[in-house]
């Protein structure tokens, strides 16, 4: 359990305390990752299934390393190739996997709301590894973790999220978590990429990159998709990078020296970030990768192990 929650599907449902529970535990998990022997027996005998309906080597591997570091058994189930093509429904697939009695089902799906639907039909804990443009809670938590680590706190800090906000589950999970830790949020991108009514989530909207990043303590740069067939949001990546991409010159002129730059990866080098910035002093992108494992360890531990379920066992 994470606070009241049996699942980790949407940070929108999580309170400040529940978020902090994960983040605090992730600090100890990160310690484990720094040891020479990176393995603890905390989840021995527990099983975790990675059920990915969308390809994502990064996120899947991160959950996989997290599970293995905690000594859990792990099954990777790539759904696109097998069951789905045979016409099996999402609920059928989830129930079949449940018959294997996993403790946690990690699910990635292109449709927003899919993990919630699965959670209603299975008995085990469900962790969303990203659903459509809804949420990517472990990414939101690892972004918070990275910011706490780099900035000390999010209290009173200003975070700018730049890019295709409308299609971004990362942006939504950041928006549902960072303000609960005291951060002020700015959203920036071409107006075509700013979803309707997003100000209601407690953020200011900026079309001008400079306005959004000047004075910010952190910037989350989102990956830009080259083409969205049938609904062109930008004329091309060239103009995008000119107006909404960060290069060394803009970073030098506009950013606070202490400002950190995050990116959920993989970076489109030369589009949203120039290589000098992606690899430069502001970038904490590689820290995010390691922190992602620590945060996912904390999530899996709390949902599959934790003191409560251990008592039941």
């Amino acid at each position, binding site marked *: 359990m994470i606070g009241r929650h049996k699942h980790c599907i949407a940070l929108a449902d999580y309170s400040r305390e529940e978020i902090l529970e994960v983040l605090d535990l992730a600090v100890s998990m990160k310690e484990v990752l720094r040891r020479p022997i990176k393995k603890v027996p905390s989840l021995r005998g527990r099983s975790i299934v990675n059920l990915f309906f969308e390809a994502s080597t990064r996120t899947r591997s991160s959950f996989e390393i997290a599970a293995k570091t905690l000594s859990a058994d792990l099954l990777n189930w790539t759904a696109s190739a097998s069951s789905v093509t045979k016409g099996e429904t999402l609920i059928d697939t989830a129930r079949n996997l449940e018959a294997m009695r996993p403790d946690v089902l990690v699910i990635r799906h292109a449709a927003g709301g899919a993990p919630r639907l699965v959670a209603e039909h299975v008995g085990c804990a469900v962790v969303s590894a990203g659903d459509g443009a809804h949420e990517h809670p472990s990414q939101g938590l690892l972004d918070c973790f990275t910011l706490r680590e780099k900035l000390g706190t999010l209290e009173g800090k200003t975070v700018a999220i730049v890019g295709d906000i409308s299609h971004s589950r990362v942006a939504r999970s950041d928006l549902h978590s960072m303000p609960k830790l005291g951060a002020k949020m700015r959203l920036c991108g*071409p*107006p*075509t990429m700013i979803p309707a009514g997003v100000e209601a989530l407690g953020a200011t909207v900026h*079309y*001008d990159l400079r306005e959004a990043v000047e004075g910010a303590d952190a910037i989350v740069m989102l990956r830009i998709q080259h083409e969205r067939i*049938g*609904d*062109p*949001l*930008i*004329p*091309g990546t*060239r*103009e995008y990078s*000119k*107006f909404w991409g960060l290069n060394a010159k803009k970073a030098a002129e506009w950013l606070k020296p202490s400002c950190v730059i995050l990116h959920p990866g993989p970076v489109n080098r030369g589009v949203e970030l120039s290589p000098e910035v992606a690899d430069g002093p502001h970038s904490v992108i590689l820290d995010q990768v390691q922190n992602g494992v620590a945060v996912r360890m904390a999530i899996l531990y709390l949902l599959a192990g934790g003191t409560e379920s251990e008592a039941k066992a």
Partner: protein
Amino acid sequence: MSDVIFIEGGRVIDPASGVDGVRTVVLRDGRVAEVAERVERPRDARAVDARGRWVTPGFIDLHVHLREPGQEYKETVATGAAAAGAGGFTSVCAMPNTRPVNDNASGTALGLARAAQAGLARVYPVGAISKGSAGEELAEYGELQAAGCVALSDDGRPVMNAGLMRRALEYAKAFGLPLTVHEEDLHLVGKGVMHEGPVATRLGLKGIPAQAEEVMILRDLALLELTGGRLHVAHVSTRGSVRAIRDAKRRGLPVTAEVTPHHLALTDEDVAASGYGTDYKMNPPLRSADDVQACREALADGTIDAIATDHAPHSAVEKDLEFDAALNGIVGLETAFPVCLALVKQGHLGERRLVEALTRSPASAFGLPGGTLARGAPADVAILDPAAEWVVDPGRLRSKSRNTPWKGKRLAGRCTHTIVNGRIVYEEGRSER
């Protein structure tokens, strides 16, 4: 040549600064230095006697086709800018439907370079809404603006895809650029060649219903409500369009509109009266007398902000044809003032409102400099003789093309001087090129 111009004795009409009366105007170093009842004439000044004339801010036309690059046989930036000067226009916005379409920085730069060489009217390029005006992908508005574009349009090719139009309105918001839209639903237009109604029926010509324009305006006003942004409706021509714009403005939507002199002055009956005259074929088509009446009222009450000519030069090869085959459009820069002045004389429009619709209103619609004679404003001035009568001789027009329905007609009102940036670029009776 002197840097100071001293215009005395004229009736200064400058709605932007609320002046209407006999004043002296002093222009110095490309700016308006003074507008006052009594001014000492500076020793080095070049004096212009404006007694009996109107002295107004230089006219601003939001909608012209200069045809360069690609169709220089119809018009060039230089001949178009000369036509502008002869009509009292000091600024013109050049539509992007050249060949190639102006959808990038180099097309925009070419137009500006040609205009600079000509040294006549100011030319403001309008960039394309979609790449190649093909209605599929957004053009690079940031690049177009940086190169000098002041607005965006796929004029002549309406954006039929509502999804793209939505994105265009949204994307343009990042740069604060207005979209100036040519509104016609091509499915409703079909093969139509003139306004649908009794006249088209009588002539046996295929009609274009007023609704072809109205449904698109209603669509775009709905999209404007969804997206925000800035919408400017080009060449409004029907009562239903006027009603839609009036309603949108009442609701506070950021929309502006323009009307052409020909849609204020002519009706579909003129197509019949001219005997299938192709100088009466334009797009939108000349409408019914009732539509014309609605446009006049809308211009008078400000529902329609500006008068724009839709100056559309075509060669004889494209006009001396059967009505169905002729291209749409007429030249308008050199006849706009007298044609609209006639509306004043007929009581449809006040004098000050006429000047406002040619100066301040278009300037504010696109955020252009000028449109006023306030101190410090650009020294762009038109001096007009409202009483001068003349017969339109297409051979004497500065435009390269002669496609005007006022051919051989006697008009009253004529520009006598046009001053751009403190330089006299047109003077009546001076050498015509």
